[in-house]
């Protein structure tokens, strides 16, 4: 499912360098990535999703050599094969929950919005317990509910791989467990691969395995590693 080979990545102008000789995550596997802040966990997700491109080496995901794809092919790859969940949910404030779930179908022409998709969106919302709240706007939802909407948005295009960056980082303990349960259930039921970046060691026993990322970066872990917003592709 995910294959990283001789990967080298360095942010322009930064002293942070990520080096991964080989990393393999199998189809249907549920993996937790752990490590201190700034060690490259989010960078890994960005590389796998094709948001960032490596300086050397290759990234293969869902059968595509992501690192070799053009910008537009990487966007199509991302929207059709990857589902992404973020720590701060990142819902669009002026769209209600239903429209947020269907957002991928509004921003990329390669996805066709039809009644089947709408039905699937509704079923997803029902399955995560927000079926009666799809008409609400993000500010009208609790944080746990917002994250459920974000999970539905990540799943609506039926991706093969789900990447979640600290999905429980902003949630209270009760919501934390619920959201993680939902993520694991959704991946289990459809055989999807799940990669979750987390700081929360208490959750590790819920995954098939965890990868400690401390060994993959060369510089001292600090906050100098830029956020994904500083990557070349986003800023270009």
């Amino acid at each position, binding site marked *: 499912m995910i294959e990283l080979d001789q990967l080298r990545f360095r942010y322009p102008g930064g002293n942070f360098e990520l080096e991964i000789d080989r990393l393999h995550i199998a189809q249907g596997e549920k993996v937790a990535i752990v490590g201190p802040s700034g060690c490259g966990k989010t960078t890994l997700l960005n590389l796998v*999703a094709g*948001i960032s491109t490596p300086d050397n080496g290759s990234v293969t995901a869902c059968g595509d050599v992501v690192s070799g794809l053009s910008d*537009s092919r990487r*966007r*199509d790859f*991302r*929207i*059709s094969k990857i589902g*992404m969940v*973020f720590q701060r949910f*990142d819902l*669009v*404030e*002026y*769209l209600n929950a239903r*429209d947020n779930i269907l*957002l*991928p179908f*509004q*921003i*990329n*022409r390669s996805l066709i*919005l039809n009644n089947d998709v709408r039905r699937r969106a509704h079923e997803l919302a029902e399955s995560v317990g927000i079926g009666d709240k799809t008409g609400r*706007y993000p500010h009208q939802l609790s944080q746990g509910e917002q994250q459920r909407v974000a999970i539905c*948005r990540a799943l609506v295009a039926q991706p093969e791989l789900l990447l979640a960056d600290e999905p429980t980082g902003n949630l209270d303990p009760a919501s934390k467990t619920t959201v993680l349960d939902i993520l694991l259930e959704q991946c289990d039921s459809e055989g999807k691969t799940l990669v979750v970046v987390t700081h929360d060691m208490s959750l590790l026993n819920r995954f098939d395995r965890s990868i400690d990322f401390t060994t993959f970066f060369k510089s001292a872990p600090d906050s100098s590693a830029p956020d*994904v*917003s500083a990557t070349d592709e*986003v800023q*270009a």
Partner: protein
Amino acid sequence: MRGPLLLAWKYVTYNRTKTFILVACIFLTVLLPVAVKILLDKFESQIVSRADTTPAVIGARGSDLDLALSALYFKRTDAGTVPFSETATIEKHGIAIPVYSKFTAREFPVVATTLDYYAFRGLQIAEGNMLTTLGDCAIGSRVAAELGIKPGDQLLSDRETVLDIGGMTPLKMNVTGVFAPTNSADDNGVFVDLKTAWVIEGLGHGHQDLENVEDELMVMSRDDGEIVASPAVVPYLEITENNIDSFHFHGEMDDFPVSAIIAVTPDEKSETLLEGNYGQGNATAQFVRPSIVVRELMDLVFKVKSVFDANAVLIGVSTALLLLLVILLSLKLRAREMQTMFKIGASRNTNAKLQLYEMGFIFLISGILVAIAVRVLMQYSGEFVQRMLIG
């Protein structure tokens, strides 16, 4: 609607306050100069066309603009009056149409004139009959519509001032007809015979027969057949078949006032001769060509408008800069949203489209509102300008 277009629409409708402010900015910036242009064009076309159809006006010396406005729009000005006898001088060169518009009836000008005026302006009775006797009036279409009166009704002239208890007595006039609309100042006139206006002014009146009066308190003195009425005699407020014969005028009619006299000469030579009459230093009246006076007025108006136009351009530029600022701030505020869309799979093109469509919707809504406002303005501009001219 779908894709970025749908998202842009959702953004615009969700952020109603922002949308309202932007739309209002664009709406006002565009509408203001357009509205001024529409009103000014209407004003020019109305005032010029009426002036062009009125070759010459003779009236009291003083402001030629006041005289022209008084003759064309029955405006109550300080233009003064000329004696009715002036018509005789003009009739040596052409047709003289006296106009006396000193009084009002329910705030519409009472226009006292002769039958020649109706032919000159092409006024046609649409309902009822033309006025025939003293105390009759025929009203313009707007007067009829606004006051809700029709032939057979009565219309009371206004006192000159509300506190003028001891002054002229209002006259109850009989409405005989309503003129067809002309979209001119004539639609606002209450047309009467000159003598009726002079009755309103108190130069003529009717009262009970003092020769055969039983109550001697009505008579102040009788001297060689000349009877002087006492203040106890109350003049008639209405002219009827029964009392019309008692109406009489005190003084010489030639000395009675008129506001202006429209002169219609058969040829240019006659007009030049007439103008020459009033060009002499000892002339008590002045000769005015309304078309020239009105064009001078319009020249002044357009000079003022050019200042306004420059101002409108500056406002337009500042609005454009304001919009740019709003867009730039919005981009900054929405950086995270754009980033999320990019991470999910949107192209940079999609984000640009979103911004473009949002501004497109703002301009579209503003444009629709401006179009509606312009349509309404064009529909009512004639009436508005009429009111402005009549005052």
